[in-house]
């Protein structure tokens, strides 16, 4: 590894230590009265939050937009990756 590689590595280690120091310096409140069996978020809860239980609650419309985004990304990827035809063919 050359000298700039060491400098980058040291900078990243300093960056990580800064983050870790910031996280560990916070006094995170500890939970009280938490029941691991009953209070755990299940897949069903995530589904309810995503699609809502009634009316316009939830993120169903955003899911549709993300589906459109994925479709556009797929079409863009195909368009970019397709072979270009040589002149005269």
């Amino acid at each position: 590894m050359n000298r700039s590689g060491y400098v980058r590595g040291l900078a990243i280690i300093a960056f990580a230590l800064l983050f870790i120091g910031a996280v560990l310096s916070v006094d995170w409140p500890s939970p009280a009265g938490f029941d691991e069996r009953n209070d755990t978020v299940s897949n069903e809860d995530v589904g309810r939050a995503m699609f809502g239980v009634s009316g316009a609650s939830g993120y169903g419309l955003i899911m549709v937009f993300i589906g459109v985004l994925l479709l556009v990304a797929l079409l863009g990827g195909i368009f970019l990756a397709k072979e270009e035809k040589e002149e005269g063919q």
Partner: protein
Amino acid sequence: MIPIEYWLVLSSLLFAIGAYGVLSRKNAIVVLMSIEIMLNAANINLVAFSRYHTVLHPLEDKDPTGQVFALFSIAIAAAEVAVGLAILLTVYRRYQTIDVDKINILRW
């Protein structure tokens, strides 16, 4: 229950590893993978804070919004990778390399 500090430290380390990959590697596919590692670090933060909120307020309704946002983030990361790989394929056809130090013009 695993304390939230552990998740945040893991997320910080993942983010730092991804940032090191982006800064130091020359292969564009490895750079793309490093960006994905950084995105996953953000996803871990979202899920960890969602869980922490549920743990801190056990009597309120469960609020898994952070986990829903993590799913959205994963979907957007998939779209980003699809476009990124297609661009890399085009660049390779044009320059016969995916070394990011050698791809230094934004036209072809």
